[in-house]
């Protein structure tokens, strides 16, 4: 047990206690949390700064506004409904098509207007939000995944998570939905995670259910060595989020849209630690390096350049 702990320490694995104490608690002031915990505010903030986000179709804030839902959705046949304060992907409903009053969920199950309204009301009651306070339901554009990533995922939209420390992208992975994860991109639900080489933007080995795999379990396509298009632009987009929120340690979730390119999906003030498994390396050495050097780095360009210089895959 102790040898295992020492091995992990040698790799520089970041544990939950240390992440909370030395990174989120120290670098993320509490008063900034609402900026990222409220996805609607994040979206507005990003829009104002000219950062690309999925288009907002409408917001339901009060129970009576549910009546307006058909009006909001009139011109949209596919969209996403999510709680503004949700966490861990809870409460997100993806509608991929509709026939008048019948909506088809991403997994093929049909639901009628009443069921959709109920879902929205459930969101408003705050059951998915942190602390259970009343919430808002956000209705937005459903991302059309880039064909390059679509071949290595099963249903759902793969997203790219970048850990941003003091504005420097330190680690990244792409999360690929599988049949087991039901189209969701959460690793603990069975999604596949593949580390990304920060220097080149090519995927490294993938991790699925604590084991290392070479190909997608559902599609059989190789997940290693896939080059993410427009990687540097994507890194710069992520790096800009530091000025946006002021959070020192954050996770940036980006999706690659077929037509609109990289879009910021959401920001996370307490990003998970699984990314280390996907990259098969620890965060601590990289975080320490940034801590020592971040004062000399000015602007997005320099920070991205620093990241690409130092955080190439060692493999």
């Amino acid at each position, binding site marked *: 047990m102790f040898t*295992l*702990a020492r091995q*992990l320490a040698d790799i520089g694995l970041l544990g*939950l206690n240390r992440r909370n104490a030395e990174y989120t608690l120290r670098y993320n002031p509490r008063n900034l949390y609402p900026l990222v915990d409220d996805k609607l505010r994040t979206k507005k903030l990003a829009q104002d700064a000219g950062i690309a986000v999925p288009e907002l179709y409408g917001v339901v804030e009060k129970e009576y506004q549910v009546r307006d839902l058909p009006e909001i959705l009139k011109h949209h046949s596919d969209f996403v409904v999510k709680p503004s304060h949700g966490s861990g992907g809870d409460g997100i409903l993806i509608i991929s098509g509709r026939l008048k009053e019948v909506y088809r969920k991403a997994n093929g199950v049909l639901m009628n207007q009443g069921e959709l309204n109920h879902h929205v009301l459930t969101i408003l009651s705050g*059951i998915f939000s942190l602390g259970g306070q009343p919430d808002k339901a956000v209705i937005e554009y459903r991302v059309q995944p880039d064909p390059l990533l679509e071949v290595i995922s099963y249903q759902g939209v793969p997203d790219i998570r970048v850990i941003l420390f003091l504005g420097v992208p330190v680690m990244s992975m792409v999360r690929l939905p599988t049949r087991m994860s039901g189209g969701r991109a959460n690793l*603990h639900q069975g999604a596949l995670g593949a580390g990304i080489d920060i220097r080149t933007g090519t995927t490294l080995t993938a991790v699925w259910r604590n084991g*290392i795999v070479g190909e997608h379990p559902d599609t059989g396509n190789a997940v290693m060595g896939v080059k993410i298009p427009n990687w540097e632009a994507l890194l710069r987009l992520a790096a800009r989020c530091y000025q946006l929120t002021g959070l020192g340690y954050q996770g940036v979730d980006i999706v690659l849209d077929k037509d609109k390119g990289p879009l910021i999906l959401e920001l996370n003030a307490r990003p998970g630690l699984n990314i280390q498994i996907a990259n098969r390396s620890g965060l601590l050495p990289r975080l320490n390096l940034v801590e020592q050097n971040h004062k000399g780095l000015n602007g997005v360009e320099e920070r991205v350049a620093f990241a690409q210089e130092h955080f190439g895959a060692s493999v």
Partner: protein
Amino acid sequence: MNRVHLYLLAFSLIVIGLGLFLYKALVLGFPLSPQKVSEIWNVEAHISFIAKNKPVKVSLFIPRTVRRFAIVNENFISQGFGITTATEGGNRQAEWSIRKAKGKQILYYRAEIRRIETKESGILVKPPEIEDPKFEGPYLAATQSLVADIRARSADADTLVKELLKRLTKSQPDDNIALLLGKQTSISNKVRLAVRVLAQAGLPARAVHGIRLEDENQNAPLLHWMEIYDEKQWRAYDPITGEPGVPPDYMPWWRGTQPLVQVKGGDRLQATLSVNLKQEEAVRAAIQSGKIKSPLLLDFSLFSLPVHTQAIYRVLLLVPLGAFLLVILRNVIGIKTFGTFMPVLIALAFRETQLLWGIILFSVVVGLGLTIRLYLEHLKLLVVPRLASVLFVVVLLMALLSVLTHKLGLERGLSVALFPMVIITMTIERMSIVWEERGASEALQQGLGSLVVAAIAYLIMTIGYIEHIVFVFPELLLVLLAGTLMLGRYYGYRLLELHRFKALAKGNT
């Protein structure tokens, strides 16, 4: 800087806590283990009633020194009431009186009782007078027939009483007894009837009411037994077993047929008796040995509180201990639970039900509640009404379980009612959401985690030794607080994280 600050704080907490502890343990000689140095009980009668703005008179029977128990010290607590005590017919009675009182009134009688060993036998030269049992009409006939019957089947007073008690306690009493008892089949009524029947048979007998001197009981039930005068002394009989003699921890409170407490000029009278074994005696021995000059420390210790409050603090002081355990289990081991401190509250509830029953009842109620919650999901209700509905169902389920287990003769089931219902309801709600969003395995994992943590906390919190230490030396909680503060700076891996990231270590070696 912060770190130094924390270490200093933790260090001073430890020094203060351990210092006080060592001073009390070594210098003052406070007992380190729950030893019963001498058997002294704090007995308390708590009387409350609503006065009707009239002169009020309250009379309460109070215990007197008897062969096995001596009253060491007693006091009466009341505001504005005059108090007199009188001894009459072998009973002592306290009488509170006031010219005018209005609203809720509370009176206390408190006594310290010590067990004594006397060799003196209770021989009475003069036999007591027999009170006329006043049976009339069919009752008289029934009594006479009953007396004739039991007399025919017995050889002496002892066998006569046994025969009578045997008949009284039968589940299907014969016609005579059924007529005499009527609908009132409580033990106290059976004892009262037995006394009258024996009077009819010419045998002096009396009803005795008392309590059991237990370690602790905040609501000590009144026990009833009887005494008969035979061979120049009073002999006790247990009405339930019909055997002579009563357990040594039965303390008589008063004799006769009158109720414990009576009030004139007030209503809604309530009286509860409580008893607890006193640890202070060992502490007092330490003072009496002259090692401490002014017992200021004692005046401000938990022992100075009323018996009721002391019993509450015995439990309350264990809560920080549970919280400390929770910190270890969550931040060092990494067990996932529902809610942060819910497991500690479940553990407290287990104190009422015992562990195995607690786990079974908790699982059953949560399981059934979960089923109903999943069914309610189909009805598309808003959250607050849905939560309220689950609460309804939980309360009804608990009532049903209690009735069922009671019918099955399992008394444990009754105590489930003390389970914090809202906590169960919230558990059900949280669990069902996790179930839907993260799958059954995650929900069961967290549910199991909560139960395991609660069970561990329960097992540790119920060690009598620990309960004693925390109550006698509450300052040790400061040491625990220091530990908790230090754990707040534990940045190492959680034990279960090692398992989670195992693949990483393998992949790199």
